[in-house]
């Protein structure tokens, strides 16, 4: 069963954290091993752990010029194509084609002359198991920054590409990437007045999309578990709208809790052990509940009569909850402690607010503001300070952070004209600094994106 020597296994233990052997090569995993260094002593010296980070935090800065060559015929070509597209999609890299030798040091002066700061070298070999070697070269310093080999079943070639792109991202930006991730969403087909909605999932770049439910009932609001292959979502099955948990491994759906009204707006707690949701009440309001997934025990967190409290989301440390409430007369954003106390309003701009979601970095809350001119997607501090808008549109809503907090997926819809013509619904991604918005290609209309954690 072993595809690597004992020494390689030891090295792996030392080098790898999240890219572990979970699942094994045959079961769909990707095996990562360090590569021997090429070239001179200086290259060897530079292989230490001192990161050559390039800071891009905050505002939009000039993208990093990086050469990503064709990794060779067949899978090599496809893999380098996905790496290029992943890096380009962030807006943080200026990807250039070119030739970089896979087994010797590149010609640094030639690469420098082209304006490159970093160069990737790579190759793909093997049939039963594809082995992809990748090296990352600091063109300016003339040093190797990283060298790894990735072994997996050929059917997993896209994951290899995403994992390589994540490793390049991390080495150059100093934080985890988000390429080896998926987005759960709602697929939309048919006329505007009666769209068929299906729970669906795809890779973050739109590849490998497939439908998880059959579209018989209105289905909305998927949310990823931070710890397991599970989604929470809202289904109108049997005309009883309520929250279900979908197991991605088995396809099994389980009703979550028992509520007299509609249970909706689910979201996992950061530890993955509970789900917070909203449930409508007979008096025209909606209360927030926390449900323990192991015991199904439920605890009501808010209970103001006739008030709508919905769209709850935990802070990443689990200490606070941001939510949408009309307790003050119009829908606004509030933050309270995780036990339901000390709610205070944080949104004070013009219009109504909704869909708050806390950044995994903890420092920002993304939201939707609705004014006379349409919808605005924005971010503000957890104290409501520093509000700024990222993008606008007829409808922009349902923001979901990439696991590193650097980008947001959201739903963008265009207005419908006469007869519903012109209505479109798609998933877009934008950098949290408000640049590089782009649509994720989907085969059907799409809404309600939910970004997964990094895969393990």
């Amino acid at each position: 069963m072993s595809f690597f020597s004992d020494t390689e296994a030891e090295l792996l233990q030392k080098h790898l954290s999240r890219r572990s052997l979970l699942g094994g090569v045959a079961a769909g995993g990707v095996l990562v091993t360090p590569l021997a260094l090429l070239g001179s002593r200086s290259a060897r010296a530079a292989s230490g752990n001192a990161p050559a980070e390039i800071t891009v935090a905050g505002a939009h800065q000039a993208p990093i010029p990086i050469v990503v060559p064709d990794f060779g015929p067949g899978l090599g070509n496809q893999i380098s194509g996905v790496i290029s597209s992943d890096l380009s999609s962030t807006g943080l890299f200026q990807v250039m084609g070119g030739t970089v030798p896979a087994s010797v040091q590149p010609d640094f002066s030639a690469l420098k002359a082209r304006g490159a700061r970093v160069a990737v070298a790579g190759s793909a070999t093997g049939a039963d198991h594809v082995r992809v070697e990748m090296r990352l070269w600091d063109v300016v310093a003339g040093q190797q920054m990283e060298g790894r080999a990735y072994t997996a079943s050929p059917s997993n070639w896209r994951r290899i590409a995403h994992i390589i792109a994540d490793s390049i991202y991390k080495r150059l930006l100093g934080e985890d990437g988000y390429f080896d991730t998926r987005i759960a969403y709602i697929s939309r087909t048919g006329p505007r007045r009666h769209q068929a909605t299906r729970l669906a999932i795809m890779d973050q770049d739109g590849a490998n999309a497939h439908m998880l439910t059959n579209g018989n009932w209105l289905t909305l609001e998927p949310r990823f578990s931070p710890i397991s292959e599970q989604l929470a979502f809202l289904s109108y099955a049997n005309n009883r709208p309520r929250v279900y948990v979908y197991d991605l491994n088995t396809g099994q759906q389980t009703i979550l809790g028992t509520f007299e009204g509609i249970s909706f707006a689910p979201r996992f707690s950061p530890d993955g052990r509970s789900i917070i949701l909203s449930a409508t009440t007979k008096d025209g309001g909606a209360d927030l509940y926390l449900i323990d997934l192991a015991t199904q025990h439920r605890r009501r967190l808010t209970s103001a009569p006739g008030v709508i409290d919905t769209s709850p989301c935990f802070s990443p440390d689990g200490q606070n909850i941001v939510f949408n409430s009309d307790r003050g007369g119009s829908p606004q954003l509030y933050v309270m402690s995780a036990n339901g106390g000390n709610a205070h309003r944080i949104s004070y701009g013009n219009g109504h607010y909704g869909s708050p979601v806390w950044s995994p970095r903890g420092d920002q809350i993304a939201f939707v503001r609705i004014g006379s001119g349409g919808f605005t997607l924005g971010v503000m501090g957890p104290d409501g300070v520093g509000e700024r808008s990222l993008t606008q549109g007829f409808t922009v809503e349902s923001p979901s952070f990439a696991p590193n907090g650097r980008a947001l997926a959201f739903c963008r819809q265009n207005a419908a004209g006469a007869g519903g013509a012109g209505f479109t619904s798609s998933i877009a991604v934008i950098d949290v600094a408000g640049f590089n918005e782009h649509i994720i290609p989907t085969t059907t209309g799409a809404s309600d994106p939910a970004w997964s954690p990094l895969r393990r």
Partner: protein
Amino acid sequence: MKLKMFAVLGMACALTACSGDHKNHDNDGDGQNTQQMSQGPVPGSQADLVATAGDRVYFELNKNQLNSEGRATLDKQAAWLARYPQVNILVAGNCDDRGTEEYNIALGQRRANAAREYLEAKGVAPARIMTISYGKDRPTADGDTPEAWAQNRNAITSVR
């Protein structure tokens, strides 16, 4: 639901003479299929409800208060329901698409509740009324104009 409704309609037709007001109604969305017969809608049917009372009431932006027109419609619905005590209904609350998906689910439910409470106050037994909210996901008017939004802020009663 549709199948069930047709079954009920078939029975009603067999037992009673199919007569009543004959009006053409725009039954868009939500599966409110009318059985148009030359003699007019089947008594106790959805088409009869539409013809006799009207099946929907409208709301202002972000509101769930019934206006006088809406109350008049619900008065007629209550009277109609008193004539057909075997008929149960589903009241579905809907919203325009100028709010978030999640807030609108709760707002639509609030609108359905407002209609339900009014009907109950007029003597309709609570057990006969089910409510649901589709938020902004089942618009009855297509375009994105203020007129279409006004039509989409509603509570629609259907025979179930």
